[in-house]
């Protein structure tokens, strides 16, 4: 119970910081839009509509991956400026509450981005979802959490490294590859309507499993990472 209150404090603080600057989320929205445009120009979905459908799942997730990586890096930079992080380390509240609060805040941001992005994406890539579109409402949050929880963790891990910004993708990408595979397969499956529901179910279950396992591990090890020297 007290733990939840700590988490809430951290979450509120993060949301407030974000609200103060606000433009970081605007920037992220615009960034994702740009990524979609870049991909569209690079891959030319208009001339190959079936191909567009096949690769759109991949493009969506790769775009979100890049966008959220930038945001994740940012979110810890704030803590590091002025060595606030040391104040956090000196605080008696459980370290993992800080982590959970921040992961939740990040999750909220990325979900917001997705809500705005979805329609644009569908329009730009001229997609008709052939499968059961509702499933996407399950796949997107699960996939996002998979990215966000690991991303928040490893952004913290890389905090004191010299090339922080570059380090995060380097650790996060290989680690998330299985999750990316699941998300992309499930999403493409829904969009193309090619996969049968059972297979999609399998992907989703696996994704949920991935989320649970990694969330547990992250929470368990966060204190160690925070106090690593």
């Amino acid at each position, binding site marked *: 119970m007290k733990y939840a209150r700590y988490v809430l404090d951290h979450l509120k603080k993060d949301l407030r910081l974000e609200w103060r600057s606000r433009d970081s989320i*605007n*920037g992220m929205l615009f960034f994702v839009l740009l990524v979609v445009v870049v991909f569209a120009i690079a891959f*030319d979905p208009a*001339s190959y509509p079936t191909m567009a459908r096949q690769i759109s799942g991949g493009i969506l997730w790769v775009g979100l991956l890049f966008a959220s990586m930038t945001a994740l890096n940012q979110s810890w930079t704030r803590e590091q400026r002025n060595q606030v992080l040391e104040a956090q380390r000196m605080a008696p509240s459980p370290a993992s509450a800080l982590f959970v609060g921040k992961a939740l805040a990040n999750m909220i941001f990325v979900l917001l981005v997705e809500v705005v992005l979805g329609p644009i994406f569908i329009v730009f890539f*001229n997609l008709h979802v052939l499968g059961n579109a509702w499933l996407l409402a399950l796949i997107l949050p699960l996939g996002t959490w998979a990215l966000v929880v690991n991303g928040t963790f490893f952004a913290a891990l890389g905090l004191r490294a010299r090339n922080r910004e570059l380090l995060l993708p380097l650790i996060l990408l290989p680690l998330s590859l299985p999750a990316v595979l699941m998300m992309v397969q499930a999403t493409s499956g829904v969009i193309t309507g090619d996969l049968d529901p059972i297979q999609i179910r399998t992907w989703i279950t696996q994704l949920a499993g991935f989320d649970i396992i990694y969330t547990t591990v992250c929470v368990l090890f966060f204190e160690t990472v925070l106090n690593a020297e």
Partner: protein
Amino acid sequence: MDRSSIIRTTAWLWLAATVVVLVLGFRQAIFVAPMEATMGNLQRIFYYHVPHAILGLVFPYINVAASLAFLYWRRRDPLKALSADALAVASAEVTVLFAGICLASGMLWGKPAWGIWWAWDARLTTELILWLLYVSYLLLRRFSPTGQTGVLSAVLAVFAAIDVPIIYMSIHWWRTQHPAPVFGGGADSGVDPAMMPAFLLNLAGWAMWGLLLIGFRFALERRRQLAEQEAALLAIEASLETPQ
């Protein structure tokens, strides 16, 4: 009459004229102009879509002219530079607005005409990039540290203005789904003369509207700048009274 009331009267007169022209244009476009052969009434979006497209390409040049003026006056005459900066913001915002309306009306047109909202063809892509460029300009203005906003955004404006023709050139050879240029195109280009009055009226009306918006936004920005200066002056003067 002092200067501000002259300006105010002019603005009201201008607004009235704009409304008149737009109303006339609306009548022409919707009720008078002949129905198009293949697309039917749908084609009437043309009278709104094309003027916005054309104007969206004109306003960026106001923006870059103002930005260059800003860079020139920055050290020589800071007060003039501030006005130039205000004009630059105003025209950039109106550019975003007009390009946005062109995009939106085009998409509304495309859905029934082509059956899809969006296609990656040269015209559409061009317009989208134009819009993106000026959105990024506005974002830079918000992100940049106080005191440097003017300079940084003016430099970006120059880059953006150079980019606009490049986009047009580079995408010219791309596959296209959008109607070929009607004006000044090949031999069989040109619209039915009966459509011309509607088109010209709308073009004029929206141009006047755009200029009015720029003027209004300019005045607003000037007012903000003046208020800021005022506050700063107050800050200085207040301190001068404190005993030394």
